[in-house]
């Protein structure tokens, strides 16, 4: 038996392919939206993996350092190191800010770390690690910096000595790694005017500026200028201990909040990007409905354009199921072309997106099934119209 759908598609392939491409671009947009969500989840996981930590120790009653602000003293890590099961503990700071390079600015997450400790970038794609204690930086390639380029963070210039890859914040901003001391200064140091104002206030305070206690004012001023805060302590657990048991110890004895990798993932994925995920979910739902409406409209219009032929086919004895099959196959064919075009389009344009777009095979498979289901549903309107065609319409009168 002849494939009526196949012949019809071949007969008007230009119209069919153009329609498929239009639908494909819409499916491509849908796949990309799913990819944006996957990218956000992946960014969050990469962020945690790159930190090299098993436990994040943060300020009590906060969900820092990524989801909320966290501020702890930079000597906390010494106490943590003394706990059983802790192999390494290191201070880190995180600050999302505008980093200047030349006349341009780029939004980056500035990470302060101690070389050789958790928090250091795990691999470089170019350049070297930090060797000096100050004013050197390693940047993610996505930040757009080149080796040897000088970038400005707050009041100091840094030389980019190394480049790394796929180190981004949960918001997708590329990371710039600098020495911890510099990062603390960048994050916590007050500007000169504020320091002068504070010194004047301290000097005017008789309790802190006692004539009989020389050196007290200087000591107070020095304490106000130097900042000893960090955002978190990253902990690596030693062999034989579990992250959860060590985290419990930290919570119990140090009066700090400690999150394991699983808990931190929960914070990042379920809480930090939850609103974005819902937003994307809404877009996906709308795009799916729009795609369904477009397929339904196209197939319905194509069917209405063939009413006379359908009447003739019915008159000469074509079964209803053959006619329904023809329309269904055309709808599925349109969906298939649309899916292939959409997949190719999404693959081609995904790298051009400023944030990471992760196109997973599983999502593509699910999208394919949804497209086929949507096309099947969308064809029912046209099938209904075709089945209602009276074969008598082929005979005049």
């Amino acid at each position, binding site marked *: *038996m*002849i494939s*009526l759908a196949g*012949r*019809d598609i*071949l*007969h*008007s392939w230009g119209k069919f392919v153009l329609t498929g491409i239009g639908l494909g671009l819409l499916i491509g947009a849908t796949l990309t939206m799913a990819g944006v969500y996957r990218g956000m989840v992946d960014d969050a996981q990469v962020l945690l993996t790159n930190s090299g930590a098993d436990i994040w120790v943060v300020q009590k009653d906060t969900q820092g350092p990524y989801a909320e602000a966290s501020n702890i003293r930079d000597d906390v890590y010494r106490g943590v190191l003394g706990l059983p099961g802790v192999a390494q503990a290191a201070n880190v700071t995180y600050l999302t800010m505008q980093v200047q390079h030349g006349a341009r600015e780029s939004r980056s997450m500035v990470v302060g770390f101690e070389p050789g400790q958790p928090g250091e970038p795990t691999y470089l794609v170019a350049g070297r690690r930090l060797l000096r204690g100050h004013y050197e930086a390693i940047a993610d390639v996505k930040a757009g910096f080149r080796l040897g380029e000088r970038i400005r963070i707050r009041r100091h210039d840094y030389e980019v000595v190394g480049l790394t890859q796929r180190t981004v914040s949960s918001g997708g901003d590329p990371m710039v790694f600098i020495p911890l001391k510099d990062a603390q200064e960048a994050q916590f140091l007050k500007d000169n005017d504020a320091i002068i104002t504070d010194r004047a206030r301290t000097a005017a305070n008789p309790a802190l500026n006692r004539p009989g206690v020389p050196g007290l004012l200087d000591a107070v001023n020095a304490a106000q200028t130097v900042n000893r805060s960090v955002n978190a302590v990253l902990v690596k657990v030693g062999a034989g201990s579990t992250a959860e048991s060590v985290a419990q110890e930290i919570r119990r004895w140090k009066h700090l909040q400690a999150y394991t990798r699983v808990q931190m993932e929960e914070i990042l994925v379920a809480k930090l990007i939850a609103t974005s995920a819902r937003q994307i979910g809404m877009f996906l739902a709308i795009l799916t409905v729009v795609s369904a409406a477009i397929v339904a409209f196209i197939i319905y219009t194509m069917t209405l354009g063939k009413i*006379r*032929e359908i009447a*003739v*086919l*019915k*008159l*000469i*004895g*074509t*079964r209803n199921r*053959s006619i329904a099959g023809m329309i269904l196959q055309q709808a599925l064919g349109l969906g298939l072309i649309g899916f292939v075009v959409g997949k190719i389009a999404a693959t081609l344009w995904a790298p051009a997106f400023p944030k990471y777009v992760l196109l997973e095979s599983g999502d593509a498979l699910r999208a394919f099934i949804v497209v086929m289901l949507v096309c099947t549903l969308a064809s029912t309107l046209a099938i209904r119209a075709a089945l209602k065609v*009276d*074969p*008598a319409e*082929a*005979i*005049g*009168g």
Partner: protein
Amino acid sequence: MDQGIHIEGLSKRYGAGDTAVDALKEVNMSIAPGEVVGLVGPSGSGKTTLLKCLGAVIEPTRGRMTLGGEVIYDSAQGGWKTKDLRALRRDRIGFIFQAPYLIPFLDVTDNVALLPMLAGRANGASRARALELLQALDVDHRAKAQPSELSGGEQQRVSIARALANQPPVILADEPTAPLDSQRALAVMRILNQMASQYQTAIIVVTHDEKIIPIFKRIYHIRDGRTVEEAGEGRDIS
């Protein structure tokens, strides 16, 4: 006559009560195999209704129809003899329309071969049958062409081949020459006569085309739902 098509007392009423319209009133017709008869009448006389009843597209209200020696409809015995009117139309009735209405996405061969295929014949045998008919109608050189590539006359010949594809005992032709000029109209009628004779098919041609009315040997005039048979001129066009 056992073969051909015979209609006795065929009536069709649309609606009921005060608004009822009797489109056909006790119509009697008898056409032998190989015969081509004309069915002539003004607009609204009941031609199309009769064609639809004969074509098993609508159900008559009363009467009896015999096709190829077999009763296909008898109102006294419950109406249609078969529930599968689609198969009845496919296997036993050929249709030729005012416009050819070829399926635009099938080539000429497959337009003709579609009917035997729908009847369950193998693709090869169906296409062989189609080519045989296209040859008989002198359009076999366009066998691979698309309908849109054919002239009006060629399209009409292909539609005749399609009507003959399943060797039906009767062909219903609904104004087949209406869009054609005199020369082409006569050519189509010549082909219909030739095919009726060659394949022993009864052909009913619904027309009000003055050019071809003199060709029929027998004509049924239909007016207000009633038919009157009269002898035609039977002009020789061979």
